[in-house]
């Protein structure tokens, strides 16, 4: 568990570094004459003159995730969160880092498992913990109060499948490659303020093999939504 926390903190630290670096670049780009400006305007945007064009993006989200064809834990729930931040290299193309975590859980009713000369009867609680992190790229269609985008995340995923039987946990951890296409939108209802809201729908796939006991989980397919804040 401490290892997971250390990894998460390291990822978040990387995110913070990115944020700090991006801010420094933003500051340099806007330089002295525009120092007090909180945003510049995109002359190529149809919403020019009315809405700001932000060079950086940060999203902190509550995450809901459902698994697809996963024997460890099925269902759709909201035990997760996501953090990402980046910088728009152009008015449309942004690049950054992300990290998220999620736990899917399922109660498995009392069942008898028999193999060869052995049989076991028990009920179980299954959990599947996923922690992907890496780089994110997004294409923003336009800047304005509503800023829709499409994006893709890619990186590594740490996953841990655990079955709790009779008070003891048996687990299988794995690492894999992670990829996730996403569509989303930032909503900035406040004039000249970067604070806003964020919503996204995503699919993700990781090559992790978390097969455990009699439960197949080779290749993790998920879908879900994220809802949070943007700034």
């Amino acid at each position, binding site marked *: *568990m401490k290892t*997971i*926390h250390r990894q*998460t*903190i390291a990822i*978040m*630290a990387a*995110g*913070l570094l990115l*944020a*700090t670096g991006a*801010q420094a670049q933003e500051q340099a780009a806007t330089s002295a004459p525009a120092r007090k400006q*909180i945003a510049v305007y995109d002359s190529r945007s149809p919403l020019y003159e009315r809405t700001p064009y932000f060079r950086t993006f*940060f999203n*902190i989200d509550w995450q809901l995730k459902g698994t697809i064809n996963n024997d460890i834990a099925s269902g759709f729930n909201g*035990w997760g*969160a996501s*953090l990402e*931040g980046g910088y728009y290299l152009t008015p449309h193309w942004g690049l950054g880092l992300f*990290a*998220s*975590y999620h*736990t899917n*859980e399922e*109660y498995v*009713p*009392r069942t*008898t498992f*028999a193999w*060869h*000369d*052995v*049989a*076991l*009867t*028990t*009920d*179980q*609680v299954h*959990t599947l*913990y996923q922690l992907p992190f890496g780089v994110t790229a997004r294409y923003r269609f336009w800047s304005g109060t509503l800023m829709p985008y499409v994006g893709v995340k890619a990186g590594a995923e740490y996953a841990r499948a*655990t079955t*709790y*039987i*009779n*008070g003891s*946990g048996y687990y299988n951890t794995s690492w894999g490659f992670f990829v996730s296409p996403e569509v989303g939108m930032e909503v900035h209802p406040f004039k000249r303020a970067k604070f806003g809201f964020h919503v996204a729908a995503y699919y993700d796939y990781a090559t992790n093999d978390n097969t455990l006991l009699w439960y197949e989980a080779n290749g993790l397919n998920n879908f879900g939504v994220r809802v949070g804040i943007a*700034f």
Partner: protein
Amino acid sequence: MKKKRFILLAAAAAALASCQKNPDLEALDGEYLVYTQCDTTTEWTAHASYFVPDSILVIGNSETPLYWKDGDARKLAETVAARLDERGFTRAATKEEADLGVQLSYVSSTRFFVSYPVTPYWWWYYPGYWDPYYWGAWGTWGYGFPVYYSYSENSLLMEMLDLAAPTGEDEELPVVWNAYIDGDLSGYRVFDLERMARGIDQAFEQSPYIQK
């Protein structure tokens, strides 16, 4: 503004790192885990009778043999007998008359075994543990399968022995079936006893091959 953003990100990072969900173990039904193994070469129909002692060996902190002999112990032994009766076996009055023997052991504490040598089976050297000599003229135990017992407290071990096997100092007393029933104590003796009895029922339920 920059400071605020930094603080917000730091808070978010801390939240991400610390908010792993704990499993909801309250969802578990509280019944005992039941694990059984058998020697697949056993011809059950070749056996007709069985013997179950009316006491249960307690594996705990004591360094002298301690047996559980009260009404609760008898109830568990009677549950075993009832299931064997249902499968067509006849209860013998003495172990000498029986084809099968069933020995019951209850693990009340694991403290004694923490530093114990585990060769070949950790419970063998517990003082007062069921001995082949208790059952007859056998030199040692013989398991037809690998055994994976747990060290958990509040466990009931059941072992069924083939008393029709050849005897002799060099002969093994074959263990043809065993069961391991385990779960937490609730603090309510009657409730725990009922769960243990249901565990015995389940052990036979998942061993349909035990049939005369």
